[in-house]
């Protein structure tokens, strides 16, 4: 083995050092790890997993079953193909036997994903792909060419395939080198992985994404994926030195590597003759060509003989012999000394992607291979992938007959032999899918790229059906293994999932709050003081709320504005109780059920006017409730004149709780009558609190005297700071949970689970008897829903007042399961632990499986007479605390501004925005029309958003969203990292608008003359801002 003095596209002027299995070697730019190993005489690259047999480099590409190595430096990466790994200086790798080793530290590299759209996607830049790409380019189409190899500029000399020059010259062409299309999905959606910096090794710039996933939507796809050469099964066909014939030719021409000194060629077709002739011309001795065909093609045989090569027509290689590698080859009874045995059993078109497209495959008897049939998608297959192999072939030969098949290898990675397949068919298995699972053939890293067709042919042979009659296993994505890091892209760490925060978030964080995830929200959980653990902090917060005054950020509650002449009727149909009888100025608690009678959500409805309500939902369910309302309005009750608008982020909400809350509110809202008679329970008032226009609701989720103060979220922090200036204790969600549980108030999703009715919760009172119908009503009389042994909400007091029952724990009555714990806390007010549970039947005591006993009680454990709700009869007014600071308006992304090459990002804060519902179109669908000051944005067939000072009648949503302006020539490129829309100027020109997703966050996107305006909900703004800056790292 050595380098040819001239051949190859390698840069001999530079030497790269690398280490394999502890020894240092040298190679050149342009090498793969496999070619460099061969050039250094290294043939053994692994040990088979099951049998411990030595294995060598078998191919020169993605079909490689043997040369799967562990990369150690620069970063540990298991099971990497040496045949496709570009060599770099400092590469350290080692051979494997089976699995590799995952890194024991986080991958420091960046990963990325981009959406792309094109008229034509060409997969593979070989001769057929290049021709197709040129033809498409010439029509002016938007073309993407994806090829697994390095880019043309990196190739110092062109070899066989691809004259890449001339490709990518179209004005709208994008050439993606080192990019493998790994999946073909519905509606011509293809996923490709671009390897961008791995080939640079230690020199890879850390700010460049190492790999990038391309999500490509193509109008038409051209597959030019080539063909893989097939092996033949014979004794010892797994020895290092046995190689696919075409691969040897690749090593010679692309890398200038002679993979041996003396070779025997074993073929069923013409293609191996070219290999033999080229290798002979390069100085390698060809001992003989064993051609399975009794009559080889005359011209090729003549050329071989003219080159001094013996052609053994109609002869088969019966064994490769050697100790650890090929030393001789048995052809019939002749033993030919050789260190290289080149095999060609024919070629299989690479039909993986075509099959994934939904395409049918057809067995071509002439090729002995599957070729593309019909696909439901807009795809065509060209070149070898379509079966156009350009050379003659003979009768397919799958295995060489022998008495013992235990060394005829089928799947080199899984150590599956012909004998194993015979064992499977002998056991009665006739389906290739079954044989695959029984033998494990085709289940390894290479997913049967060299073994699949062979397995199928062996099953056909054994079961006596025609070749191709045994079928094939499914070609599943991905075509090649894809790293999890690439799939994760930038969705990891802080950007793992969109995060929602309230206008008060920074205050909570600065005060050391710990946060709880509720849906995508981060909510303050509790605020530990120095030296406090969670239990101590929560007991202190609970005590403050029950005995003094405390406040919570309740801004995350979903809020939906419901307006229209039929609003009352609509809510009557949705809620189990009556909402039409609610007086303007009052508030009512309500429960929504699904038609099956199970609790779906709860919250309050406040009546703002005859035709106008504001309803609240649970934090996690806001979007689902709005969807639910729209579903009924649009699909069942289109005659109801009602519109619903989310205003969750428009309002910041502060819950002010405790016997001292009235004094604090009276102090902050001097214009408000806060006394018991003047501001009764379950009413609301509009006033100013701390100088901020506010809507104050007298509702309580704790049983204490309490208020919820709502202000524009722009002023949320000012309100909170004013409240905090009055010696009010901040409390978090844990305390909120304890307080409500002490009162037996259930949390939807914690004390209910989709099989719980209002009656199960002991809330018969919330189910209207007057209404003729509402969602869920009919189900309450279903036999199952009305049965007496349903689980109902109860309270539990553990016998040991310090024992805390685990939430979710099973509860036993004797040895019978009676229910489970839904909520469990230590209580400051009760001076002990307690729990809520859903329990079937009547019991006095229940035990957990670990033997903790608890007495069953009412679910209302604190103040069952509701004596605390209205506060003290007469109150000594707190002394005025001396005013408050002037309120300050704050935007969600205050100060957000960044500039990159060709790109500028900045918040456009405090835009006036009004959600307008009208049957009279304001702008055509998908357009945003501006009069210079105010832009009218189409949101839906009867919905618009006005942005700007112009007057419009509708729901004020100015603080619901903020705006980020992205300008500059590369604005589109930035958005393409997280937005699946085609933003090409021809498709999405200035004046277009869309509601869509950016970085998995809902946005309103408006194309402007020099960029885009992105409207994002205030709670997502910080996340989206961080995401945009991260995506702009390479700009």
């Amino acid at each position, binding site marked *: 083995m050595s380098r040819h003095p001239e051949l190859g596209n390698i840069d001999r002027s530079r030497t790269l050092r690398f280490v394999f299995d502890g020894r240092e070697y040298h190679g050149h730019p342009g090498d793969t790890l496999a070619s460099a190993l061969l050039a250094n005489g290294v043939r053994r690259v692994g040990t088979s997993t099951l049998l411990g047999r030595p294995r060598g480099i078998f191919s020169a590409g993605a079909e490689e079953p043997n040369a799967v190595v562990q990369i150690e430096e620069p970063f540990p990466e298991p099971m990497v193909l040496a045949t496709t790994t570009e060599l770099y200086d400092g590469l350290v790798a080692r051979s494997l036997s089976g699995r590799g080793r995952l890194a024991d530290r986080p991958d420091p590299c960046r990963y990325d994903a981009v959406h792309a759209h094109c008229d034509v996607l060409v997969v593979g830049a070989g001769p057929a792909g290049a021709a197709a790409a040129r033809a498409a380019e010439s029509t002016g189409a938007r073309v993407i060419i994806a090829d697994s190899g390095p880019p043309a500029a990196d190739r110092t000399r062109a070899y066989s395939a691809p004259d890449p020059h001339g490709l990518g010259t179209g004005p709208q062409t994008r050439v993606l080198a080192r990019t493998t299309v790994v999946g073909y999905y519905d*509606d011509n959606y293809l996923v490709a992985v671009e390897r961008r910096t791995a080939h640079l090794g230690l020199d890879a710039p850390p700010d460049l994404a190492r790999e990038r996933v391309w999500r490509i939507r193509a109008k038409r796809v051209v597959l030019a994926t080539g063909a893989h050469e097939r092996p033949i099964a014979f004794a010892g066909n797994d020895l290092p030195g046995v190689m696919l014939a075409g691969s040897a030719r690749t090593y010679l021409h692309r890398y200038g590597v002679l993979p041996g000194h003396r070779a025997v060629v074993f073929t069923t077709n013409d293609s191996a003759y070219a290999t033999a002739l080229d290798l002979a011309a390069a100085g390698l001795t060809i001992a003989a060509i064993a051609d399975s065909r009794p009559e080889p093609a005359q011209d090729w045989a003549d050329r071989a003989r003219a080159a001094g090569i013996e052609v053994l027509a109609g002869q088969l290689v019966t064994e490769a012999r050697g100790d650890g590698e090929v030393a001789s080859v048995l052809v019939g009874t002749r033993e030919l000394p050789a260190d290289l045995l080149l095999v060609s059993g024919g070629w299989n078109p690479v039909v993986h992607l075509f099959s994934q497209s939904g395409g049918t495959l057809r067995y071509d008897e002439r090729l002995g291979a599957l070729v593309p049939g019909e696909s439901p998608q807009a795809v065509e297959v060209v070149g070898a992938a379509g079966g156009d192999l350009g050379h003659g072939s003979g009768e397919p030969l799958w295995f060489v007959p022998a008495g013992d098949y235990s060394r005829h290898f089928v799947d080199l990675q899984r150590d599956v032999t012909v004998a194993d397949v015979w064992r499977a068919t002998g056991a009665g298995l006739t389906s290739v899918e079954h044989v695959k699972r029984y033998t494990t053939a085709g289940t390894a890293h290479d997913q049967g790229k060299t073994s699949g067709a062979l397995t199928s042919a062996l099953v056909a042979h054994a079961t006596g059906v025609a070749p191709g009659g045994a079928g094939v296993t499914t070609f599943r994505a991905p075509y090649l293994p894809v790293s999890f890091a690439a799939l994760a892209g930038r969705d990891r760490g802080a950007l793992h999932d969109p995060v929602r925060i309230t206008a008060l978030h920074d205050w909570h964080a600065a005060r050391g709050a710990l946060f709880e995830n509720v849906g995508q929200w981060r909510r303050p959980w509790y605020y530990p003081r120095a030296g406090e653990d969670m239990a101590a902090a929560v007991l202190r917060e609970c005590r403050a709320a029950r005995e003094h005054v405390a406040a919570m950020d309740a801004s995350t509650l979903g809020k939906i504005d419901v307006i229209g002449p039929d609003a009352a009727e609509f809510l009557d149909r949705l809620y189990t109780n009556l909402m039409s009888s609610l007086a303007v100025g009052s508030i009512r608690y309500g429960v929504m059920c699904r*038609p*099956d009678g199970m609790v779906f959500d709860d919250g309050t409805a406040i009546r703002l006017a005859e035709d106008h309500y504001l309803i609240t939902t649970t934090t996690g369910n806001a979007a689902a409730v709005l*969807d639910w309302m729209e579903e009924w309005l*649009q*699909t069942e009750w289109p005659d109801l004149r009602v519109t619903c608008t989310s205003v969750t982020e428009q309002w910041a909400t502060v819950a002010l709780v405790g016997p001292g809350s009235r004094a604090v509110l009276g102090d902050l809202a001097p214009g408000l009558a806060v006394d018991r008679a003047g501001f009764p329970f379950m009413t609301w008032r509009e006033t100013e609190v701390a100088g901020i226009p506010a809507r104050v609701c007298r509702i309580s989720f704790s049983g204490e005297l309490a208020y919820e103060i709502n202000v524009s979220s722009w002023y949320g922090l000012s309100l909170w700071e004013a409240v905090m200036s009055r010696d009010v204790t901040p409390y978090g969600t844990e305390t909120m949970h304890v307080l409500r549980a002490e009162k037996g108030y259930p949390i939807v999703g914690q004390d209910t689970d989709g099989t719980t009715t209002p009656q199960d919760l002991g809330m018969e009172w919330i189910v209207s008897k007057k209404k003729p*119908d509402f969602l869920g009503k009919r189900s309450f009389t279903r036999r199952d829903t009305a049965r007496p042994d349903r689980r109902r909400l109860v309270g539990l007091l553990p016998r040991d007042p310090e024992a805390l029952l685990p939430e979710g724990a099973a509860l036993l009555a004797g040895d019978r399961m009676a229910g489970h714990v839904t909520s469990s806390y230590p209580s400051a007010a009760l001076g002990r632990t307690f729990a809520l549970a859903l329990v079937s039947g009547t019991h006095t005591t229940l035990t957990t499986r670990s033997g903790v006993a608890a007495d069953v009680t009412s679910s209302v454990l604190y103040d069952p007479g509701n004596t605390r709700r209205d506060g003290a009869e007469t109150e000594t007014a707190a002394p005025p605390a001396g005013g408050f600071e002037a309120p300050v308006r704050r935007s969600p992304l205050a100060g957000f501004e960044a500039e990159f090459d060709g790109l500028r990002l900045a918040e456009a804060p405090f835009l006036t925005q009004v959600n307008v519902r009208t049957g009279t179109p304001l702008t055509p669908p998908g357009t945003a029309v501006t009069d210079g000051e105010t832009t009218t944005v189409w949101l839906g*067939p009867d919905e618009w958003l006005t942005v700007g000072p112009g007057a419009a009648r509708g729901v004020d949503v100015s603080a619901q969203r903020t705006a980020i302006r992205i300008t500059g020539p590369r604005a589109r490129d930035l958005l393409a990292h997280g937005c699946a829309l085609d933003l090409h100027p021809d498709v999405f020109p200035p004046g277009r608008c869309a*509601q869509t997703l950016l970085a998995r966050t809902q946005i309103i996107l408006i194309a402007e003359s020099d960029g885009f305006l992105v409207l994002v909900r205030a709670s997502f703004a910080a996340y989206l801002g961080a995401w945009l800056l991260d995506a702009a790292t390479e700009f």
Partner: protein
Amino acid sequence: MLLIPCPWCGARDEVEFHYGGQAHVAYPEDPSALSDEQWGRYLFFRENPEGDFAERWSHSAGCRRWFNVVRDTRSNRIKHVYLPGEPRPVTP
């Protein structure tokens, strides 16, 4: 990733939509007049054909409008898109 044609916004990626199950399952005129079995049939029984299926989608990340499609469950090909309240188009 299906490309679903919203009747208002045009074709968008599947992730922007919320699936609404079988179309044309009307809320009964008078649920109280139904037997448990009839009501149970409305609540729980849905078709699962191999072939054309009329189903509901909501463009939840876009215009928030509900609409119906006829999709061939074998190929995922969407053959018709129509608005709530419109009759199911006749498929040849």
